[in-house]
């Protein structure tokens, strides 16, 4: 099924436009970018602004600086029923929706491509993160880890939520489109 509209929430990140281009190129969807501040305002306003903001086939939470607790307004997304894809910080936010927690990595990894086994093949994915998943949230399942056990992808058993810790939109990731299509399939978008 073709994807019509994607809303991409931007956490003042410097990779958001890469993600926009990847989403547009691999799905053909119209991608609308909204800053986190707009989400917060619409949530506080409720009613029509809130419904308008969530009126999309897929919501995407961008990477960004800091930790999930700086972005409390995203908790409201967990009640909307719309499929949610989270990248990096976005994945950590999904984990915290579900009661999970986030921890500093030792050492942190920035700007490194890593080969990861997935579905019987090897995929090269880009990592940029200082923080990672510590305690896994309720109802979540880890679908990908590094060889050292760092969570690289997770999805919810019942709800349409999926997260990648790595960056499919980076030029260091071998096949970014593969990961977007995989997410759409899993989320039944």
């Amino acid at each position, binding site marked *: 099924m073709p994807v019509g509209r994607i809303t991409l929430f931007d956490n*003042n*990140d*410097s*990779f*958001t*436009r*890469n993600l*926009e*281009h990847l989403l*547009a*190129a691999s799905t053909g969807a119209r991608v609308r970018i909204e800053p986190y*501040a*707009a989400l917060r*305002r619409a949530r506080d306003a409720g009613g029509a602004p809130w419904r308008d903001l969530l009126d999309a086939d897929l919501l995407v939470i961008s*990477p*960004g*600086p*800091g*930790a999930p607790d700086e972005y409390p307004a995203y908790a409201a997304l967990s009640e909307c029923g719309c499929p949610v894809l989270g990248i990096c*910080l976005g994945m950590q936010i999904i984990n915290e929706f579900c009661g999970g927690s986030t921890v*500093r990595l030792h*050492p*942190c990894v*920035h*700007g*490194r*491509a890593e080969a990861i086994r997935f579905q019987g093949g090897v995929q090269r994915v*880009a990592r*940029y*993160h*200082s*923080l990672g998943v510590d305690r896994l949230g309720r109802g979540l399942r880890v679908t990908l880890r590094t060889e050292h056990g760092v969570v690289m992808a997770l999805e919810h058993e019942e709800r349409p939520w999926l997260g990648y810790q790595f*960056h499919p*939109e*980076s*030029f*260091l990731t071998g096949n970014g489109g593969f990961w977007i299509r995989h997410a759409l399939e899993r989320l039944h978008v």
Partner: protein
Amino acid sequence: MSEPCTPARTTDFEVLPGTMGRQTFHDAALHLARTRGADLFLSGPGFEDAHRSLVALEPVDELLLQDPALLDRSCPGNSPANFRAGDQDSWNRDVAQRIKDFCFNTPGPALGWLGYELGMRLRGVPVTKPCELPLGVLRKYACLVEHDARTGRVRCMALPSCRALVAVREALARNVAQHPGLRPGLKSDLKPGQEPNASLDRQAYTDAVRTVLGYIRGGHTYQLNLSLAMQTRVQGLDPLTWFGQLLYHYPAPFYVWFPMGEQRIISTSPERFLQVRQGHVLAQPIKGTLRVAPGRPAQVAALQNSPKEDAELSMIVDLLRNDISTHCRYGSVRVERHKHVFQVDDLLQMASDVRGRLRPGSDCLDLLLGALPGGSVTGCPKRRSMRIIDELEPHARGVYCGAFVYVQGPGDLESSIGIRTAVHNARTETLRFWAGSGIVAASDPEAEYLETLAKAGKFLAGAHDHLA
């Protein structure tokens, strides 16, 4: 932002007969700077795809980005208390429109620079430190002369009002004594001054690096460019001769001489920021520096194989992809020549090409203003990195880490990153310059301090030992 621009009345360049070498042209350029107050954008020898040199004379119009109307009008960066959603966008649109009107509504290309603090305001980061210079300056000229070092051809554009044509013709006809700046071995009349005053001494700089490492571990930034400013007395320095000496001894692709009253801006940058040619966009971020040991073969492979330098460059490539994507067509953005290495001064530098195509409705100034300041001099993610920079650096950056720009039209632009840049003040006889390095998780504070000094080396040596 995407309003169509009024097309400029084009002013044609006339190709002059004959050809001339780069150094002969640079001699003429320095002569015209001396005798006619010309502004210069010169590319030194030895760098592929930087072959254009420009001499600009008789400014006919100037856009000074500092007047109160521009900056007081609800500038979100200055009045966070009054910030409303949309203010930032509207301020950015206003600034863009002023610059576009200046560049595109009158004939001829514009030359000038846009400072780091303009970038701060555009990105919504409050400006807290006083700047000696305005936020940016653009000029239009009665006469512009352009040399292409690949062909040796010279092109000239002149408005009917131009009075300097005879002087230009004479200078180009090699009736110029060789400029003393462009020859080796000449003594300058510079007297060594005192040791430079640094805004951060060794202890303060390495402490700041440690603070950055804490921010990196906390996930606030992945990489951050930390600089220091230096000021030194240079009694008796003739800045134009010194500029010529630097160009001769330390060639780099983006030399700029830009006088502003008692201040003379001197940039010796190796780094292209954004180039747009007929809508084709090229960014060339540099990250990764290795000092070449005298008498030893250049360690190109050591630089390319260093995981730390690789990660630094990759991060900034992703950042530049992001920054040009805002105004590029879907599917057009790509990375080429990843990790190519070139040498400038005694430093090996690693760089990549990031390319794209402007999208319909966006012009080169939308692209430039959307990407300012360049990602390689802020860090990533950009906005939070800039806030941390502002917290840790006691100095304003000013023209340093801004951009020098040559705007030819909506689809044509050349620009460099304002690094390896100095400002000479003729009244106080002081030289102010800056240097910085990129801090990542694997950074060693002492090593970063030394890298920063290495980058300032040509100014330290140039202003004190080398010429004196």
